Protein backbone atom coordinates (compact mmCIF):
# COMPACT_ATOMS: atom_id res chain seq x y z
CA UNK A 1 0.00 0.00 0.00
CA UNK A 2 1.92 3.05 -1.14
CA UNK A 3 1.39 5.93 1.21
CA UNK A 4 3.04 9.16 2.14
CA UNK A 5 5.66 6.94 3.73
CA UNK A 6 6.91 5.60 0.43
CA UNK A 7 8.48 8.71 -1.04
CA UNK A 8 11.91 9.65 0.38
CA UNK A 9 11.01 13.34 0.28
CA UNK A 10 7.93 12.75 2.49
CA UNK A 11 9.43 10.04 4.73
CA UNK A 12 12.63 11.49 6.26
CA UNK A 13 13.70 8.01 7.41
CA UNK A 14 13.60 6.49 3.92
CA UNK A 15 17.00 6.76 2.16
CA UNK A 16 17.48 7.56 -1.51
CA UNK A 17 18.98 4.69 -3.47
CA UNK A 18 22.52 5.55 -4.57
CA UNK A 19 25.57 3.79 -5.91
CA UNK A 20 29.28 4.24 -5.42
CA UNK A 21 30.92 5.50 -8.63
CA UNK A 22 34.48 6.07 -7.41
CA UNK A 23 36.58 5.16 -4.35
CA UNK A 24 39.86 7.00 -3.56
CA UNK A 25 42.28 5.94 -0.83
CA UNK A 26 43.10 9.09 1.14
CA UNK A 27 44.99 7.53 4.01
CA UNK A 28 46.22 3.95 4.46
CA UNK A 29 47.32 2.23 7.68
CA UNK A 30 45.49 1.47 10.92
CA UNK A 31 43.20 4.52 10.64
CA UNK A 32 42.41 4.32 6.91
CA UNK A 33 40.30 7.00 5.23
CA UNK A 34 38.58 6.46 1.88
CA UNK A 35 36.69 9.06 -0.13
CA UNK A 36 33.55 7.72 -1.83
CA UNK A 37 32.00 9.50 -4.80
CA UNK A 38 28.31 8.58 -4.68
CA UNK A 39 25.60 9.21 -7.30
CA UNK A 40 21.85 8.97 -6.67
CA UNK A 41 20.12 6.37 -8.82
CA UNK A 42 17.25 7.58 -11.00
CA UNK A 43 17.10 11.00 -9.43
CA UNK A 44 18.79 14.40 -9.74
CA UNK A 45 21.15 15.32 -6.93
CA UNK A 46 19.42 17.47 -4.32
CA UNK A 47 20.95 20.92 -3.91
CA UNK A 48 22.73 21.59 -0.64
CA UNK A 49 25.12 24.04 1.05
CA UNK A 50 28.70 23.38 2.13
CA UNK A 51 28.80 22.07 5.70
CA UNK A 52 25.58 20.06 5.40
CA UNK A 53 25.80 16.30 5.78
CA UNK A 54 24.09 13.04 4.90
CA UNK A 55 23.27 9.87 6.79
CA UNK A 56 24.80 7.11 4.68
CA UNK A 57 22.77 3.94 5.22
CA UNK A 58 24.11 0.38 4.98
CA UNK A 59 21.15 -1.90 5.60
CA UNK A 60 21.98 -4.55 8.20
CA UNK A 61 24.62 -2.36 9.81
CA UNK A 62 22.98 1.01 10.36
CA UNK A 63 23.57 4.62 9.39
CA UNK A 64 26.42 7.06 9.92
CA UNK A 65 26.60 10.83 9.48
CA UNK A 66 29.18 12.17 7.02
CA UNK A 67 29.61 15.81 6.07
CA UNK A 68 29.53 16.24 2.30
CA UNK A 69 33.18 16.62 1.29
CA UNK A 70 32.74 18.36 -2.08
CA UNK A 71 31.28 21.74 -2.91
CA UNK A 72 27.80 22.00 -4.48
CA UNK A 73 29.55 23.44 -7.55
CA UNK A 74 31.19 20.05 -8.18
CA UNK A 75 29.36 16.93 -9.48
CA UNK A 76 27.94 14.11 -7.31
CA UNK A 77 28.46 13.70 -3.58
CA UNK A 78 31.75 12.87 -1.92
CA UNK A 79 32.11 11.47 1.60
CA UNK A 80 35.40 10.83 3.41
CA UNK A 81 34.97 7.81 5.65
CA UNK A 82 37.37 7.01 8.52
CA UNK A 83 37.17 3.28 9.30
CA UNK A 84 36.14 3.20 12.92
CA UNK A 85 32.97 1.13 13.54
CA UNK A 86 30.20 -1.11 12.21
CA UNK A 87 29.00 0.94 9.26
CA UNK A 88 32.37 2.39 8.28
CA UNK A 89 34.05 -1.05 8.28
CA UNK A 90 31.37 -2.34 5.89
CA UNK A 91 31.75 0.78 3.70
CA UNK A 92 35.50 0.19 3.50
CA UNK A 93 34.78 -3.33 2.22
CA UNK A 94 32.51 -2.04 -0.56
CA UNK A 95 33.52 -1.63 -4.21
CA UNK A 96 32.44 0.65 -7.03
CA UNK A 97 28.86 -0.13 -8.08
CA UNK A 98 27.64 -1.21 -4.64
CA UNK A 99 24.38 0.31 -3.46
CA UNK A 100 24.05 2.46 -0.35
CA UNK A 101 21.28 4.63 1.06
CA UNK A 102 21.59 8.40 1.33
CA UNK A 103 19.45 10.56 3.58
CA UNK A 104 20.03 14.24 3.16
CA UNK A 105 20.78 17.09 2.93
CA UNK A 106 20.69 17.35 6.73
CA UNK A 107 21.65 20.09 9.11
CA UNK A 108 22.45 23.75 8.50
CA UNK A 109 25.33 24.65 6.15
CA UNK A 110 27.81 27.54 6.21
CA UNK A 111 26.27 30.94 5.30
CA UNK A 112 28.56 31.37 2.26
CA UNK A 113 26.37 34.16 0.79
CA UNK A 114 27.02 36.35 3.85
CA UNK A 115 30.78 35.88 3.44
CA UNK A 116 30.90 37.39 -0.04
CA UNK A 117 33.77 39.85 -0.36
CA UNK A 118 35.57 38.65 2.78
CA UNK A 119 38.81 36.71 3.24
CA UNK A 120 38.37 33.04 4.17
CA UNK A 121 40.66 31.03 6.46
CA UNK A 122 40.04 27.29 6.95
CA UNK A 123 41.81 25.66 9.93
CA UNK A 124 41.49 21.87 9.83
CA UNK A 125 42.80 18.87 11.74
CA UNK A 126 42.78 15.21 10.61
CA UNK A 127 39.41 14.08 9.22
CA UNK A 128 37.99 17.52 10.19
CA UNK A 129 39.21 18.77 6.82
CA UNK A 130 36.09 17.38 5.08
CA UNK A 131 33.66 20.29 5.59
CA UNK A 132 36.50 22.79 5.03
CA UNK A 133 37.30 21.17 1.67
CA UNK A 134 33.70 21.79 0.64
CA UNK A 135 34.22 25.48 1.54
CA UNK A 136 37.50 26.11 -0.26
CA UNK A 137 36.30 24.26 -3.38
CA UNK A 138 33.25 26.58 -3.40
CA UNK A 139 35.43 29.66 -2.82
CA UNK A 140 37.84 28.62 -5.60
CA UNK A 141 34.95 28.07 -8.04
CA UNK A 142 33.57 31.56 -7.20
CA UNK A 143 36.95 33.22 -6.79
CA UNK A 144 35.80 36.69 -7.84
CA UNK A 145 33.19 36.89 -5.05
CA UNK A 146 35.66 36.38 -2.23
CA UNK A 147 38.86 37.90 -0.88
CA UNK A 148 41.96 35.73 -0.54
CA UNK A 149 41.79 32.15 0.71
CA UNK A 150 44.14 30.59 3.31
CA UNK A 151 44.06 26.83 4.00
CA UNK A 152 45.71 25.75 7.24
CA UNK A 153 45.66 22.00 7.73
CA UNK A 154 47.56 19.54 9.90
CA UNK A 155 47.53 15.86 10.84
CA UNK A 156 49.45 13.40 13.00
CA UNK A 157 51.87 12.26 10.28
CA UNK A 158 52.33 13.06 6.59
CA UNK A 159 50.60 9.75 5.77
CA UNK A 160 47.51 10.91 7.74
CA UNK A 161 47.12 14.08 5.64
CA UNK A 162 43.78 13.90 3.85
CA UNK A 163 43.46 15.15 0.21
CA UNK A 164 47.29 15.45 0.13
CA UNK A 165 47.79 15.56 -3.69
CA UNK A 166 44.88 18.02 -4.15
CA UNK A 167 46.38 20.34 -1.53
CA UNK A 168 49.87 20.20 -3.08
CA UNK A 169 48.28 20.97 -6.46
CA UNK A 170 46.52 24.03 -4.98
CA UNK A 171 49.85 25.16 -3.47
CA UNK A 172 51.43 25.05 -6.94
CA UNK A 173 48.53 27.04 -8.37
CA UNK A 174 49.57 29.79 -5.94
CA UNK A 175 46.96 29.38 -3.19
CA UNK A 176 48.11 30.06 0.35
CA UNK A 177 48.19 26.45 1.71
CA UNK A 178 49.93 25.95 5.10
CA UNK A 179 50.36 22.26 5.99
CA UNK A 180 51.76 20.84 9.25
CA UNK A 181 52.44 17.51 10.93
CA UNK A 182 52.76 16.84 14.65
CA UNK A 183 56.25 15.32 14.79
CA UNK A 184 59.23 15.81 12.48
CA UNK A 185 59.70 13.51 9.49
CA UNK A 186 62.81 13.31 7.20
CA UNK A 187 61.68 15.01 3.97
CA UNK A 188 59.02 17.34 5.37
CA UNK A 189 59.73 20.94 4.23
CA UNK A 190 56.82 22.67 5.97
CA UNK A 191 55.87 23.49 9.59
CA UNK A 192 56.18 20.80 12.27
CA UNK A 193 53.87 21.12 15.30
CA UNK A 194 50.19 21.41 16.16
CA UNK A 195 47.75 23.29 13.99
CA UNK A 196 47.07 26.07 16.56
CA UNK A 197 50.83 26.76 16.79
CA UNK A 198 50.98 26.93 13.00
CA UNK A 199 48.10 29.41 13.15
CA UNK A 200 50.02 31.53 15.70
CA UNK A 201 53.03 31.55 13.35
CA UNK A 202 50.96 32.65 10.34
CA UNK A 203 49.19 35.38 12.42
CA UNK A 204 46.38 36.10 9.89
CA UNK A 205 44.87 39.60 9.95
CA UNK A 206 41.30 39.51 11.39
CA UNK A 207 40.20 42.49 9.31
CA UNK A 208 37.22 41.54 7.08
CA UNK A 209 38.00 37.82 7.54
CA UNK A 210 36.02 34.67 8.40
CA UNK A 211 37.79 31.77 10.14
CA UNK A 212 36.34 28.26 10.08
CA UNK A 213 37.85 25.51 12.22
CA UNK A 214 37.12 21.77 12.29
CA UNK A 215 38.87 18.81 13.88
CA UNK A 216 39.29 16.93 17.15
CA UNK A 217 37.59 18.71 20.10
CA UNK A 218 40.91 19.63 21.80
CA UNK A 219 42.28 21.25 18.64
CA UNK A 220 39.09 23.32 18.21
CA UNK A 221 39.29 24.50 21.83
CA UNK A 222 42.88 25.77 21.51
CA UNK A 223 42.32 27.17 18.00
CA UNK A 224 39.37 29.22 19.25
CA UNK A 225 41.53 30.69 22.00
CA UNK A 226 44.32 31.55 19.54
CA UNK A 227 41.84 33.20 17.16
CA UNK A 228 40.41 35.30 20.03
CA UNK A 229 43.99 36.37 20.96
CA UNK A 230 44.61 37.35 17.31
CA UNK A 231 41.67 39.76 17.58
CA UNK A 232 38.98 37.71 15.83
CA UNK A 233 35.50 38.60 17.10
CA UNK A 234 33.12 35.74 17.96
CA UNK A 235 30.89 36.52 14.95
CA UNK A 236 33.87 35.90 12.62
CA UNK A 237 34.58 32.37 13.87
CA UNK A 238 32.64 29.27 12.74
CA UNK A 239 33.11 25.69 13.87
CA UNK A 240 31.37 22.31 13.71
CA UNK A 241 30.54 19.92 16.55
CA UNK A 242 30.81 16.13 16.58
CA UNK A 243 27.97 14.19 18.21
CA UNK A 244 26.27 10.78 17.92
CA UNK A 245 23.72 11.27 15.12
CA UNK A 246 20.92 8.83 14.50
CA UNK A 247 17.69 10.32 13.14
CA UNK A 248 19.29 13.40 11.60
CA UNK A 249 16.04 15.38 11.79
CA UNK A 250 16.07 16.70 15.37
CA UNK A 251 13.87 14.05 17.04
CA UNK A 252 15.83 11.22 18.63
CA UNK A 253 17.70 13.30 21.23
CA UNK A 254 21.11 11.67 20.81
CA UNK A 255 22.84 14.76 19.47
CA UNK A 256 21.23 17.16 21.95
CA UNK A 257 23.58 19.73 23.40
CA UNK A 258 21.47 21.58 25.98
CA UNK A 259 18.61 23.11 23.99
CA UNK A 260 20.34 22.63 20.61
CA UNK A 261 19.85 19.65 18.27
CA UNK A 262 23.34 19.47 16.72
CA UNK A 263 22.03 17.54 13.71
CA UNK A 264 19.26 20.07 13.03
CA UNK A 265 20.58 23.47 14.24
CA UNK A 266 24.19 22.50 13.38
CA UNK A 267 26.62 20.82 13.03
CA UNK A 268 27.86 24.22 11.84
CA UNK A 269 27.79 26.92 14.53
CA UNK A 270 28.97 30.47 14.79
CA UNK A 271 31.13 30.72 17.88
CA UNK A 272 28.87 33.21 19.72
CA UNK A 273 25.98 30.69 19.49
CA UNK A 274 28.09 28.27 21.53
CA UNK A 275 29.59 30.66 24.04
CA UNK A 276 26.19 31.19 25.76
CA UNK A 277 25.95 27.47 26.71
CA UNK A 278 26.11 26.40 30.36
CA UNK A 279 28.47 23.63 29.53
CA UNK A 280 31.69 24.30 27.69
CA UNK A 281 30.95 22.76 24.27
Amino acid at each position, binding site marked *: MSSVLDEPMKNPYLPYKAEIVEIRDEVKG*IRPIKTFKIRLIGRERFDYKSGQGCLVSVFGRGESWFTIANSPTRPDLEFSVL*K*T*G*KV*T*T*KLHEMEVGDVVGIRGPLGRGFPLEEWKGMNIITIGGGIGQTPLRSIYQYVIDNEKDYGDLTIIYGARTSRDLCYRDELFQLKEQGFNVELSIDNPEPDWPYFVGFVPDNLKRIKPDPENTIAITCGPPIMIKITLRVLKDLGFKEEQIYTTLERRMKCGIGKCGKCKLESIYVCRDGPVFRYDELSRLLEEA
Partner: protein
Amino acid sequence: MNSEILEKIKEECRKLPDDVSYIVGFVRKQGEPREILRVLRPGEIDRLSYSPLSSSNPSRIVMDLAKSGKVAVIAKGCDVRTLKQLEKEEKIKRERVYIIGVSCPGVIDYRKFRNAVKFRLSEIESVELVGDDVIVKANGNEQRIPFNELIFENCLYCEQPTPKDCDVLIGEPREGRTDFSDIEEFEKLDREERWKYWMDVFSKCIRCHACREVCPICYCEECLVDPSNLAVSPMTPAEEKAAYPRVLGKTVSASDNMVYHLMRVLHHAGRCAGCGECERACPMELPLLKLERKLKKVVYEVFNYSPDEEIPFLSKLDILPEV
Protein backbone atom coordinates in the same frame (compact mmCIF):
# COMPACT_ATOMS: atom_id res chain seq x y z
CA MET B 1 11.79 -3.39 68.26
CA ASN B 2 13.73 -1.86 65.39
CA SER B 3 14.30 1.35 67.36
CA GLU B 4 16.47 -0.82 69.69
CA ILE B 5 18.33 -2.19 66.67
CA LEU B 6 18.84 1.38 65.41
CA GLU B 7 20.29 2.39 68.79
CA LYS B 8 22.69 -0.53 68.71
CA ILE B 9 23.71 0.32 65.13
CA LYS B 10 24.42 3.91 66.09
CA GLU B 11 26.37 2.73 69.11
CA GLU B 12 28.49 0.48 66.89
CA CYS B 13 29.04 3.30 64.43
CA ARG B 14 30.42 5.49 67.23
CA LYS B 15 32.96 2.77 68.09
CA LEU B 16 34.16 2.31 64.50
CA PRO B 17 37.90 1.86 63.92
CA ASP B 18 39.26 5.29 62.96
CA ASP B 19 40.50 4.28 59.50
CA VAL B 20 36.84 3.94 58.33
CA SER B 21 36.09 6.85 55.98
CA TYR B 22 32.55 5.99 54.84
CA ILE B 23 29.45 4.43 56.42
CA VAL B 24 26.90 2.88 54.05
CA GLY B 25 23.53 2.73 55.76
CA PHE B 26 19.88 3.57 55.46
CA VAL B 27 18.32 7.01 55.71
CA ARG B 28 14.59 7.64 55.87
CA LYS B 29 13.28 9.26 52.70
CA GLN B 30 11.55 12.63 52.94
CA GLY B 31 7.78 12.38 52.56
CA GLU B 32 7.41 8.60 52.68
CA PRO B 33 8.49 5.78 55.06
CA ARG B 34 10.85 4.33 52.45
CA GLU B 35 14.48 3.63 53.51
CA ILE B 36 17.15 4.81 51.08
CA LEU B 37 20.78 3.72 50.99
CA ARG B 38 23.13 6.63 51.70
CA VAL B 39 26.86 7.05 52.02
CA LEU B 40 27.51 8.91 55.25
CA ARG B 41 30.61 10.31 56.87
CA PRO B 42 31.45 9.12 60.42
CA GLY B 43 30.18 12.49 61.69
CA GLU B 44 26.65 12.05 60.31
CA ILE B 45 25.67 9.00 62.38
CA ASP B 46 22.43 10.51 63.68
CA ARG B 47 21.01 10.61 60.13
CA LEU B 48 21.00 6.79 60.16
CA SER B 49 17.67 4.97 60.26
CA TYR B 50 16.60 1.31 60.29
CA SER B 51 13.17 -0.29 59.89
CA PRO B 52 11.67 -3.43 58.29
CA LEU B 53 11.57 -1.32 55.10
CA SER B 54 15.40 -1.21 54.95
CA SER B 55 15.39 -3.78 52.18
CA SER B 56 18.03 -2.59 49.65
CA ASN B 57 21.36 -4.42 49.22
CA PRO B 58 24.32 -2.03 49.85
CA SER B 59 26.95 -4.29 48.22
CA ARG B 60 26.98 -2.35 44.95
CA ILE B 61 27.90 0.90 46.74
CA VAL B 62 30.40 -0.85 49.02
CA MET B 63 32.14 -2.35 45.97
CA ASP B 64 32.73 1.11 44.47
CA LEU B 65 33.71 2.84 47.72
CA ALA B 66 36.00 0.07 48.98
CA LYS B 67 38.32 0.84 46.08
CA SER B 68 39.26 4.18 47.61
CA GLY B 69 38.99 3.64 51.38
CA LYS B 70 37.69 1.59 54.28
CA VAL B 71 33.88 1.29 54.39
CA ALA B 72 31.58 0.37 57.25
CA VAL B 73 28.30 -1.16 56.10
CA ILE B 74 25.07 -2.09 57.86
CA ALA B 75 24.29 -5.43 56.24
CA LYS B 76 21.61 -8.12 56.56
CA GLY B 77 22.17 -11.84 55.93
CA CYS B 78 21.71 -11.76 52.16
CA ASP B 79 23.83 -8.58 51.85
CA VAL B 80 26.75 -10.27 53.63
CA ARG B 81 26.44 -13.27 51.32
CA THR B 82 26.67 -10.90 48.33
CA LEU B 83 29.73 -9.21 49.85
CA LYS B 84 31.28 -12.63 50.36
CA GLN B 85 30.57 -13.56 46.73
CA LEU B 86 32.13 -10.29 45.52
CA GLU B 87 35.11 -11.03 47.76
CA LYS B 88 35.36 -14.50 46.19
CA GLU B 89 35.50 -12.80 42.79
CA GLU B 90 38.16 -10.38 44.03
CA LYS B 91 35.97 -7.32 43.52
CA ILE B 92 36.22 -6.37 47.22
CA LYS B 93 39.06 -6.81 49.70
CA ARG B 94 37.61 -8.07 52.97
CA GLU B 95 39.94 -5.93 55.10
CA ARG B 96 38.57 -2.82 53.36
CA VAL B 97 35.03 -3.52 54.69
CA TYR B 98 33.85 -3.28 58.32
CA ILE B 99 30.56 -5.25 58.42
CA ILE B 100 27.95 -4.38 61.05
CA GLY B 101 25.73 -7.46 60.70
CA VAL B 102 22.05 -7.24 61.56
CA SER B 103 20.11 -10.48 62.10
CA CYS B 104 17.14 -10.06 59.78
CA PRO B 105 13.55 -11.28 60.45
CA GLY B 106 12.65 -10.54 56.80
CA VAL B 107 11.85 -7.24 55.11
CA ILE B 108 8.57 -5.66 54.08
CA ASP B 109 7.54 -5.63 50.42
CA TYR B 110 6.87 -1.91 49.85
CA ARG B 111 4.19 -2.67 47.23
CA LYS B 112 2.19 -4.80 49.66
CA PHE B 113 2.78 -2.13 52.31
CA ARG B 114 1.38 0.66 50.09
CA ASN B 115 -1.77 -1.37 49.31
CA ALA B 116 -2.34 -2.44 52.94
CA VAL B 117 -1.72 0.84 54.77
CA LYS B 118 -4.74 3.14 55.09
CA PHE B 119 -2.85 6.40 55.69
CA ARG B 120 -1.32 8.67 53.03
CA LEU B 121 2.37 7.82 52.69
CA SER B 122 3.38 11.36 53.63
CA GLU B 123 1.51 11.16 56.96
CA ILE B 124 3.28 8.01 58.21
CA GLU B 125 5.72 8.75 61.04
CA SER B 126 7.07 5.32 61.92
CA VAL B 127 6.90 1.66 60.91
CA GLU B 128 7.77 -0.72 63.74
CA LEU B 129 8.00 -4.52 63.72
CA VAL B 130 6.85 -5.76 67.13
CA GLY B 131 6.63 -9.56 67.46
CA ASP B 132 4.57 -10.76 64.48
CA ASP B 133 2.83 -7.42 63.83
CA VAL B 134 3.84 -4.29 61.97
CA ILE B 135 2.68 -1.12 63.76
CA VAL B 136 2.29 1.89 61.51
CA LYS B 137 1.93 5.24 63.33
CA ALA B 138 0.50 8.30 61.55
CA ASN B 139 -0.73 11.64 63.04
CA GLY B 140 -1.96 10.21 66.27
CA ASN B 141 -3.53 6.93 65.32
CA GLU B 142 -2.07 3.54 64.61
CA GLN B 143 -2.61 0.60 62.28
CA ARG B 144 -1.57 -2.93 63.16
CA ILE B 145 -0.92 -5.32 60.23
CA PRO B 146 0.25 -8.96 60.54
CA PHE B 147 3.84 -9.17 59.34
CA ASN B 148 3.23 -12.22 57.15
CA GLU B 149 0.81 -10.17 55.03
CA LEU B 150 3.55 -7.61 54.25
CA ILE B 151 6.70 -9.75 54.17
CA PHE B 152 8.73 -9.79 50.94
CA GLU B 153 7.89 -13.22 49.55
CA ASN B 154 11.53 -14.15 48.96
CA CYS B 155 12.31 -13.77 52.68
CA LEU B 156 10.08 -16.78 53.42
CA TYR B 157 12.74 -18.97 51.79
CA CYS B 158 15.74 -17.13 53.32
CA GLU B 159 18.74 -19.42 53.69
CA GLN B 160 20.83 -17.17 55.89
CA PRO B 161 18.99 -14.47 57.89
CA THR B 162 22.01 -14.10 60.23
CA PRO B 163 25.18 -12.69 58.65
CA LYS B 164 27.99 -15.23 58.93
CA ASP B 165 31.29 -13.47 58.59
CA CYS B 166 30.76 -9.99 60.07
CA ASP B 167 32.78 -7.80 62.45
CA VAL B 168 29.93 -7.28 64.89
CA LEU B 169 26.45 -8.87 65.07
CA ILE B 170 23.28 -7.12 66.26
CA GLY B 171 20.15 -9.09 67.17
CA GLU B 172 20.04 -12.76 68.12
CA PRO B 173 20.93 -15.31 65.41
CA ARG B 174 18.12 -16.92 63.40
CA GLU B 175 18.08 -20.20 61.52
CA GLY B 176 17.74 -20.13 57.73
CA ARG B 177 16.38 -23.01 55.66
CA THR B 178 16.85 -24.24 52.11
CA ASP B 179 13.40 -24.82 50.68
CA PHE B 180 12.44 -24.89 47.00
CA SER B 181 8.80 -25.90 47.49
CA ASP B 182 7.54 -23.00 45.36
CA ILE B 183 9.78 -24.06 42.47
CA GLU B 184 8.75 -27.69 42.76
CA GLU B 185 5.13 -26.53 42.80
CA PHE B 186 5.66 -24.63 39.58
CA GLU B 187 7.48 -27.50 37.91
CA LYS B 188 4.38 -29.66 38.29
CA LEU B 189 2.73 -27.65 35.52
CA ASP B 190 3.12 -29.14 32.05
CA ARG B 191 5.33 -27.52 29.42
CA GLU B 192 2.70 -25.46 27.58
CA GLU B 193 1.29 -24.05 30.83
CA ARG B 194 4.78 -23.05 31.89
CA TRP B 195 5.47 -21.47 28.51
CA LYS B 196 2.18 -19.54 28.63
CA TYR B 197 2.98 -18.32 32.17
CA TRP B 198 6.42 -17.01 31.18
CA MET B 199 5.20 -15.54 27.91
CA ASP B 200 2.60 -13.59 29.89
CA VAL B 201 5.30 -12.43 32.34
CA PHE B 202 7.81 -11.41 29.67
CA SER B 203 5.20 -9.69 27.50
CA LYS B 204 5.05 -7.06 30.27
CA CYS B 205 8.83 -6.50 30.44
CA ILE B 206 9.81 -3.07 29.05
CA ARG B 207 13.59 -3.80 29.05
CA CYS B 208 14.40 -0.83 31.24
CA HIS B 209 17.43 -2.82 32.60
CA ALA B 210 16.65 -1.90 36.25
CA CYS B 211 17.02 -5.62 37.15
CA ARG B 212 20.50 -5.70 35.61
CA GLU B 213 21.76 -2.34 36.88
CA VAL B 214 20.71 -2.80 40.53
CA CYS B 215 22.05 -6.37 40.74
CA PRO B 216 25.28 -6.30 42.79
CA ILE B 217 26.85 -9.16 40.84
CA CYS B 218 25.85 -7.85 37.41
CA TYR B 219 28.82 -5.53 37.26
CA CYS B 220 30.01 -6.13 33.69
CA GLU B 221 30.63 -2.90 31.84
CA GLU B 222 29.21 -4.38 28.63
CA CYS B 223 26.47 -7.03 28.41
CA LEU B 224 25.95 -9.62 25.66
CA VAL B 225 22.24 -8.89 25.52
CA ASP B 226 20.97 -5.39 24.79
CA PRO B 227 24.11 -3.61 26.08
CA SER B 228 23.54 -0.14 27.50
CA ASN B 229 27.27 0.59 27.25
CA LEU B 230 30.18 -0.66 25.16
CA ALA B 231 33.72 -1.13 26.49
CA VAL B 232 35.31 1.00 23.75
CA SER B 233 38.60 2.90 23.98
CA PRO B 234 40.29 5.14 21.43
CA MET B 235 42.67 2.24 20.75
CA THR B 236 39.93 -0.36 20.02
CA PRO B 237 40.46 -1.39 16.38
CA ALA B 238 37.55 -0.88 13.98
CA GLU B 239 37.28 -4.60 13.12
CA GLU B 240 36.72 -5.46 16.78
CA LYS B 241 33.96 -2.84 17.14
CA ALA B 242 32.37 -4.02 13.89
CA ALA B 243 32.37 -7.67 14.93
CA TYR B 244 30.81 -7.29 18.40
CA PRO B 245 29.00 -10.56 19.26
CA ARG B 246 25.47 -9.16 19.47
CA VAL B 247 23.16 -11.85 20.90
CA LEU B 248 20.27 -9.44 21.21
CA GLY B 249 19.76 -5.82 20.27
CA LYS B 250 16.95 -3.48 21.22
CA THR B 251 14.04 -5.36 19.67
CA VAL B 252 11.38 -5.99 22.31
CA SER B 253 8.94 -8.89 22.26
CA ALA B 254 7.94 -11.57 24.77
CA SER B 255 10.44 -14.08 23.32
CA ASP B 256 13.23 -11.50 22.97
CA ASN B 257 12.67 -10.43 26.56
CA MET B 258 12.95 -14.08 27.54
CA VAL B 259 16.33 -14.35 25.77
CA TYR B 260 17.44 -11.21 27.66
CA HIS B 261 16.40 -12.61 31.05
CA LEU B 262 17.70 -16.14 30.38
CA MET B 263 21.14 -14.76 29.51
CA ARG B 264 21.13 -12.42 32.52
CA VAL B 265 20.10 -15.17 34.97
CA LEU B 266 22.46 -17.78 33.46
CA HIS B 267 25.42 -15.63 34.52
CA HIS B 268 24.23 -15.70 38.15
CA ALA B 269 24.67 -19.49 38.51
CA GLY B 270 26.15 -20.15 41.94
CA ARG B 271 26.66 -16.40 42.52
CA CYS B 272 23.19 -15.03 43.31
CA ALA B 273 22.63 -14.54 47.06
CA GLY B 274 18.85 -14.18 46.64
CA CYS B 275 18.70 -10.61 47.99
CA GLY B 276 15.70 -9.78 45.78
CA GLU B 277 16.96 -6.39 44.50
CA CYS B 278 15.93 -7.32 40.94
CA GLU B 279 12.32 -8.07 41.87
CA ARG B 280 12.07 -4.92 44.02
CA ALA B 281 13.51 -2.77 41.24
CA CYS B 282 11.30 -4.07 38.44
CA PRO B 283 8.73 -1.34 37.67
CA MET B 284 6.43 -3.90 36.03
CA GLU B 285 6.61 -6.08 39.16
CA LEU B 286 7.67 -9.28 37.34
CA PRO B 287 8.51 -12.45 39.38
CA LEU B 288 12.23 -12.39 38.38
CA LEU B 289 13.38 -14.27 41.49
CA LYS B 290 11.57 -17.40 40.29
CA LEU B 291 14.22 -17.87 37.57
CA GLU B 292 17.08 -17.16 39.98
CA ARG B 293 15.73 -19.62 42.53
CA LYS B 294 15.29 -22.33 39.87
CA LEU B 295 18.93 -21.89 38.88
CA LYS B 296 19.94 -21.99 42.56
CA LYS B 297 18.01 -25.26 42.91
CA VAL B 298 19.93 -26.73 39.96
CA VAL B 299 23.26 -25.52 41.39
CA TYR B 300 22.49 -27.08 44.78
CA GLU B 301 20.84 -30.33 43.69
CA VAL B 302 22.42 -31.24 40.33
CA PHE B 303 25.91 -29.92 41.13
CA ASN B 304 25.57 -30.10 44.96
CA TYR B 305 27.64 -26.97 45.29
CA SER B 306 27.27 -25.03 48.55
CA PRO B 307 27.68 -21.23 48.42
CA ASP B 308 30.01 -21.21 51.43
CA GLU B 309 32.77 -22.86 49.39
CA GLU B 310 35.81 -20.76 48.70
CA ILE B 311 36.14 -21.66 45.02
CA PRO B 312 33.59 -19.86 42.81
CA PHE B 313 30.97 -22.15 41.24
CA LEU B 314 32.12 -21.59 37.63
CA SER B 315 35.65 -22.76 38.33
CA LYS B 316 34.65 -25.91 40.20
CA LEU B 317 34.75 -28.64 37.57
CA ASP B 318 34.88 -31.72 39.77
CA ILE B 319 31.17 -31.50 40.63
CA LEU B 320 29.80 -32.44 37.19
CA PRO B 321 27.09 -35.11 37.29
CA GLU B 322 27.88 -38.27 35.37
CA VAL B 323 24.73 -38.25 33.19
